[in-house]
């Protein structure tokens, strides 16, 4: 399979093209005062174009490290990260990111915050078009009329919506969401889940969602990847078949309950609180 350096074979390249994001055998350790701390060991992940994968796992298992690898913010010790059939070797403008902390710049209006990536990434849009797009995105997430407000004038949920617009403004191929709804209350979070579905309909993207919330993972993603405890490897993959537009009621069906049960069980295995049966797929 892995043949060291060299250019990939044509068919191999083709296989990589189908998967917009491809992570193969990634290993990574942080250097700490008490020696290396391995966080990822044998991580496999692939996301097809237009797919939305949720990554769940015990706390501190290296989920955020995964996002930084995909974003090109750091290099793995071993293994490969591919985006669009290209090896990731550094940051690239085709990635949009949103974190648990919305990190809006307090000295800019909401509109100017959303426009920030276009000041870095070369864009075909004129100034006016860019502003129109920003207004369109803000309206899409329900922030119409808040364009000229300061971030501090918005609630936590609204700030997170603005942060989402900023991640999307430059039409990234890949959207990386690192627990974006983690700090919100339950009702706001559910509102934002619905918003995510609306956004995905109008602005299709390929996404990776890091989350602690199993309900969130099956509600938003079409595939849920369970990572094992540190050092993390891919422990279990659950497909969530798309069944038309999703509503919150979908979370209270027997199928949803069964999926949640499977995931909960897998998390317990990952935490070492339940014995692993052979052959987790």
């Amino acid at each position, binding site marked *: 399979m892995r043949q060291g350096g060299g250019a990939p074979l044509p068919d191999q390249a083709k296989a990589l093209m189908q998967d917009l994001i491809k992570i193969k055998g990634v290993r990574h350790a942080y250097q700490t005062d008490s020696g290396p701390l391995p966080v990822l060991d044998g991580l496999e992940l692939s996301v097809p174009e237009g797919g939305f994968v949720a990554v769940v796992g015990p706390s501190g298992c290296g989920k955020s490290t995964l996002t*930084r690898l995909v*974003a*090109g*913010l750091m290099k793995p010790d071993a293994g490969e990260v591919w985006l669009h059939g290209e090896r990731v070797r*550094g*940051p*690239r*403008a085709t*990635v949009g*990111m949103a*974190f648990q*902390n919305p*990190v809006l*710049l*307090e*000295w800019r209006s909401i509109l100017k915050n959303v426009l*920030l*990536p276009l*000041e*870095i*990434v070369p864009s075909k849009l004129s100034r006016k078009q860019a502003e129109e797009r920003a207004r369109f995105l803000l309206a899409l997430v329900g922030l119409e009329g808040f364009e000229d407000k*300061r971030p*501090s004038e918005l609630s936590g949920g609204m700030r997170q919506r603005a942060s989402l617009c*900023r991640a999307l403004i*430059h039409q990234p191929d890949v959207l990386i969401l690192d627990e974006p709804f983690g700090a919100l209350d339950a009702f706001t979070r559910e509102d934002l889940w619905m918003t995510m579905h609306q956004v995905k309909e109008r602005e299709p993207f390929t996404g990776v969602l890091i989350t602690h919330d199993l309900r969130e993972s099956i509600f938003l993603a079409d595939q849920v990847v369970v990572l094992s405890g540190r050092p993390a490897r891919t422990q279990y993959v659950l497909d969530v078949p798309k069944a038309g537009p999703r509503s919150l009621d979908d979370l209270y069906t027997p199928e949803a309950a069964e999926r949640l049960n499977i995931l909960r069980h897998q998390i317990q295995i990952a935490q070492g609180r339940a014995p692993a049966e052979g052959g987790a797929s």
Partner: protein
Amino acid sequence: MTARAAFNSVAVPLLALVVFLAFWEWLVWFKGWPTFKMAAPSDLPPAYSRHWDLFLTMGWQTLWRTVAGLLLAVVFGTLLGMIMGFSRIMRDALYPLLVGFNAIPKATVVPIVALIFVGQHDFNTVLLAFMISFFPIAVSVSIGLSTLEPEYRDILRALGASQATIFWKIALPKTLPEFFGALKVAATLAFIGTNLMEIVSPHGRGLGALFDSGRTNSDFPLMFAVLIALAFLGIVLYYIVVALEKIFAGWAERSPG
């Protein structure tokens, strides 16, 4: 509401000033202090009118040298703060030195500086104003930069932005509130530096020299008048900094309530 706020922002400090002067006048009268012990506010107008031209020229000398020292401190302090804010090693290396330097009483530096640069009175005074005021600026800038949350860097770094872009777009504006906080302290400190040089090593220039001549002539109202003039200059410079802060970092101010 705004008219009332404007009234408050002018009238309240003025009223406080009047109350303070009245109390001072009363205290001197009540205690029966002679002027050589404590001058009263009513002694000040004659002192000003007698030496008005001296107050103008020497006040100007003190002011420009203080501002020059402060500007130097801003440039040097910001650069030093950037170096310490971005590099962990430089921070570890420079902090003890900086704290040690700041702990040295600047009055003891005056004779040394005056000896090294004999006769360069303007330069010496600017230098002392600079030496006493760059410390808070350097510390605040370095803390502002080193405590920048990594996510702030990441949102731009993930798009391939350079370190310089991240500094201009995020780190610098985010540090401005801390910077102006330090600048307010530095502005008043710079006056202390200027006057230390003018009083301890007088060359007949600046309000410090005027204070010194008041002392030699036992002109106590003049000494008090100089102190009040210095306080006035300090307040002016402080509010100039406040105005700049409103322009450049007004976003950091939250409306109360």
